[in-house]
């Protein structure tokens, strides 16, 4: 066991973890943040995407112990309690989900994409979400949802 302190969604947490504990299991089982999903055993589906020190990562392929001292943002921390991030609103408005299993990872990956490229083309959205698999939507409405969020975020606050 090792003791780690990780700032998750702005709040520091100190916990004992086994070195083999994956970040996703730490978030889901020790912090009860079950918004981050596990969709595969092969690091390919992206259901587990969170932000680690501002970069999107697959939390199933990072050890929790490697996050000692780091900042992690999960889907629960993307917007203040009771509010929706433009991406969450976009997925709602544009019907960007069906079963919703892929959605938290999709939104976290899309948030990283919009951070790097605030006005992506549809091609850039598809390329930016390559690491996220969806078995339901056919992706079309996911692209629309991300475009909706990009447009909404481009409008200066107060307008």
């Amino acid at each position, binding site marked *: 066991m*090792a003791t780690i302190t990780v700032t998750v969604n702005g709040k520091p947490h100190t916990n004992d973890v*086994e*070195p*083999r*504990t*994956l970040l996703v*299991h730490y978030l889901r089982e020790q912090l009860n943040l079950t918004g981050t999903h596990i969709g595969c*055993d*092969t*690091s*390919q589906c*992206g259901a587990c*995407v969170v932000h680690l020190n501002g*970069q*999107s*990562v*697959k939390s*199933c*392929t*990072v*050890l929790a*112990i*490697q996050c000692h001292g780091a900042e992690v943002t999960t889907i629960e921390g993307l917007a203040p309690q009771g509010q929706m991030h433009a991406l969450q609103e976009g997925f709602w408005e544009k019907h960007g989900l069906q079963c919703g299993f892929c959605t938290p990872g999709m939104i976290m*990956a899309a948030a*990283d*994409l919009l951070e790097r490229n605030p006005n992506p083309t549809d091609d850039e959205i598809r390329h*930016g979400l*390559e*690491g*996220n698999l969806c078995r339901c939507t056919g992706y079309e409405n996911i692209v629309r949802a991300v475009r909706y969020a990009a447009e909404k975020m481009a409008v200066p606050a107060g307008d």
Partner: protein
Amino acid sequence: MIPSAFSYHAPTSVAEALSLLQQHGDEAKILAGGHSLLPAMKLRLASPGVLIDINQIAELRGVVINGNVNIGALTTWSAIETDGELASVCPALAEAVALIGDIQVRNRGTIGGSLAHADPAADAPAVMLALNAQIRVTGPGGTRTIAADDFFTDMLSTALEPDELITSITLNKLGAGEGSAYSKFAHPASRYAIVGVAAYVKLSGGKVSACRIGVTGAGPKAVRQTAVEQALIGSDGSAEAIAAAAAHAGEEMDILGDIHASEGYRRAMTKVYVKRALTSAVARAR
């Protein structure tokens, strides 16, 4: 799935990492980006008893460009991809790296980890062969440099000793009359190369005076294409010359067949992608 139990060390210097490697011997594995090792550990294809996480060793990270290009082993794909100066002096590398996996893989995966792992479908090995990379490694006996040509020995096997660490990779900057390119047929789900081809050409007085080609994905390890290179050198680099040279692609190598692509198909695609990579490398050299 959860890896089997291991003890974890996070050294902050190369010397400390080497002494941990010595101390734990066969039981120990280096952890860099973890995007080949952790998936294998989750599937219990690998169960090291000790992990030596090198992510705290700052000197292993970063790109320095002066007379040539020096890339620290721990530099992530993302850092390489977003380095504009690196892209202008090593276009084939920038092109290959942008096609690796997805952004989350590129945010964690490192160039040193990819070379040490030597996955037969990894992209970087082909680029290292084409660009004549020099791989710096350090171990208990000191530091040595291994040319890319001598580095990849077999499937998942390299000239690296178990107690050695890759510290950096040195590449030449492209000069006037030189061009390089990477062309890849990616597996649609994993994005690893079914066939990936890196090409380097130099033109002098309107003729191809040097050429190096590395192919990955097609066989058990990344290899040069000397028959193609020899056929192209001395030619004018025209479309006809490239087509004639590319017809030799895959000649002196083992080609793999699997559920994703048969041996015959991979062989045919090797010719196609050698032609594409050469065409864009020659266009850039002009």
